[in-house]
């Protein structure tokens, strides 16, 4: 498993859940209990923690540093470009779908809650990271065959 694959697994198993929960929970609390300084403060903290979850990648990359001379090459670059493009395309589809969904669920006479925006944005980031990680792992595929010990 090389650096890019490791990063994809960490993003998929740790960053996406942290990011998704951090974005959802405070907004849900605000929705249920109404806005207050404590809720807004917790949202800010949660967003910062979610954003800093990328540091996990640096931590695990250092911890699991391998002895291989080269950990990133032309194939990894190609995979990363393709997966980022896939993530970007899905992000736009998600964003359009979210806008249409919100528009359809609220009648024209009613206004859209401001709580919707942070959810859409934070979950959009989670969707992007999720799709990028999954497509990265799919492109690497299973390398059990043709491997020599």
């Amino acid at each position, binding site marked *: 498993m090389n650096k890019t694959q490791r990063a994809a697994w960490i993003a998929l198993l740790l960053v996406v859940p942290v990011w998704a929960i951090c974005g959802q929970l405070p907004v849900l609390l605000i929705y249920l209990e109404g806005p207050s300084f404590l809720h807004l403060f917790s949202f800010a903290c949660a967003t910062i923690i979610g954003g800093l979850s990328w540091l996990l990648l640096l931590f695990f990359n250092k911890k699991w540093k391998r002895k291989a001379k080269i950990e990133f090459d032309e194939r990894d670059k190609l995979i990363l470009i393709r997966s980022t493009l896939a993530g970007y395309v899905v992000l736009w589809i998600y964003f359009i779908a979210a806008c249409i969904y919100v528009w359809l669920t609220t009648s024209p006479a009613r206004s859209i809650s401001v709580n919707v925006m942070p959810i859409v944005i934070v979950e959009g980031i989670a969707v992007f990271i999720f799709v990028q990680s999954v497509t990265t792992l799919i492109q690497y595929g299973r390398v059990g065959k*043709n491997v020599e010990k």
Partner: protein
Amino acid sequence: MSKSNLTNNIRKLRFDNGQMTQQQLADKVGVTRQTIIATEAGKYAPSLPLAFRIARTFAVPIEQIFQYQDDDPQVSASDTNI
């Protein structure tokens, strides 16, 4: 990474060159072992510079390592006429 019409005999050449391991070849040509594995399996078509580096490592012409089979025989026939 889809399978291409590109075939290769890197595996054979590795064994002909003193049982070279995938990691040794990867280190010599400056890529990861996974790239060598994928190239050997025909799952990845390497870039031209990488193909040249592999050929240089085994000291053979590039055509001896990589072969391209065209699906359309007319295209290959016209190419050879040029």
